[in-house]
């Protein structure tokens, strides 16, 4: 292939030039190409980052009573926090995962003790962790949210099965968009009991833990959630919780 053979078609003359073979060595060329490929491979970003879209409420003064209208039985407050050492570095557990903790309580805070003086002994605050699924079963805070949003999730699971079998349409894009629209309808169906989640984060909570909390909303198909600021009561409740558990 890389040789060019010069032949003189059998007409051999005496003293004719010797058959010449021009051989081009491609090895350096390949070497160089490989280097270039390596360069481009390392420089490219093959995986584009993903985004999580959120909508925050406006900063304008919203009537507090309006905000608290959510039914008490549906409301659940999550407070995310991350354990840090004295230098502000995140503490890691045995598996090298950061120690992200989520406290939660359902409905209104129920306090034992004198709230006005800040001497709270106990509350309905509970602690959970962010855990991934194990063999398809939800764990940690995901399980708690899953149980609260069961009605919606059951319907969505049915839709998902239909979507997988392409029951909405044989066209892939049509199938996807119909599924998306139906899923959205279910998520916002006010006849079902759906939780309202208030997410709060302590100042030392890592960005990862807040994203984790928002992620749980996605996973559990919760359509009503908001990010709120910590108030004094929340801090007191966490303090009381830690005291109770001797930490």
């Amino acid at each position, binding site marked *: 292939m890389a040789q060019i053979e010069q032949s003189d078609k059998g007409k051999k003359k005496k003293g004719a030039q010797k058959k010449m073979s021009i051989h081009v060595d491609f090895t350096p060329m390949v070497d160089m190409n490989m280097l270039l490929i390596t360069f481009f491979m390392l420089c490219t970003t093959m995986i584009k980052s993903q985004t999580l879209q959120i909508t*925050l409420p406006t900063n304008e003064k919203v009537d507090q009573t309006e905000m608290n209208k959510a039914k008490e039985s549906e409301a659940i407050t999550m407070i995310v926090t991350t354990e840090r050492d004295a230098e502000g570095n995140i503490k890691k557990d045995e598996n090298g995962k950061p120690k992200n903790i989520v406290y939660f309580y359902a409905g209104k805070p129920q306090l034992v003790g004198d709230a006005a003086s800040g001497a709270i002994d106990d509350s309905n605050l509970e602690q959970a962790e962010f855990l991934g699924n194990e063999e398809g079963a939800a764990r940690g805070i995901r399980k708690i949210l899953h149980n609260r949003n069961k009605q919606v999730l059951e319907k969505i699971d049915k839709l998902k099965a239909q979507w997988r079998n392409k029951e909405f349409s044989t066209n892939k894009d049509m199938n996807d968009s119909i599924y998306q629209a139906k899923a959205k309808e279910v998520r916002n169906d006010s006849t079902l009991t759906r939780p309202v989640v208030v997410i709060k984060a302590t100042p030392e909570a890592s960005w990862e833990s807040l994203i984790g909390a928002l992620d749980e909303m996605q996973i559990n198909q919760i359509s009503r959630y908001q990010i709120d600021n910590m108030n004094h009561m929340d801090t007191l409740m966490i303090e009381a919780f830690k005291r109770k558990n001797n930490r």
Partner: protein
Amino acid sequence: MGKVKIKRKSTLIDMTAMSDVTVLLLTFFMLTSTFLQKEPVTVLTPSSVSEIKVPTANVAQVLVSPEGKVFISISGEADPNVAGGEWGSEQIRKEILRKAVSKYNELHPGKKVNLTEKDVDVFSKLGSFGVPFQALPSFLRMSQTEQDKVITDMKRSDVGIPIDDNKDLSKLNEFQIWMRAIYDSGNENLTSAMKKGEGIAVKADKDTPYSTVQHVLDNLQTLKMNRFSLMTALKTEND
């Protein structure tokens, strides 16, 4: 006895085919690659199950360093000739810089910032920027290596776009001036992307304290930019 003659075989391997393949691969990588954006700080984004891709065109990316310093990078249309005007990254950056500086001069008549045509040109080629308005002229007149050195030094006080808790829309802080200028850039596609929440992407390291990022989110809320995207990496439900 007949001697068995062992034919000597040449060990030369023909590399032409190999070369063909490598050239093809090279072409593929050259055409598909988008270079990594140079950023003042490398951040590891947290992961989420969301599968929405980050747009490459018409997006303003707000980068928050773990120290709380803010940087912005702007990309315009992928194809500069759509949307009725020339809205490629470079043109839109020029437009935004002019708008932002004139707004700043209007708010701070005592400390006007004057930029030459050349400064604007240099700015349009910057991937991400993050210096206060007052330091902008001297920053843009530096050589590229000096610029990189300044912008990656998180200990300097003149790095990062100044940001505070200002909630008063008549006295915008510098970050708010920039975001407002980006919103008012004149390219309708960018404005509508920002309205939909695709046009603003907030990127922060996963270990950054929430209080630091909240500062930026609060400022965006003040500007009534309530919808935006948070940059994340992909994970599955099992992690």
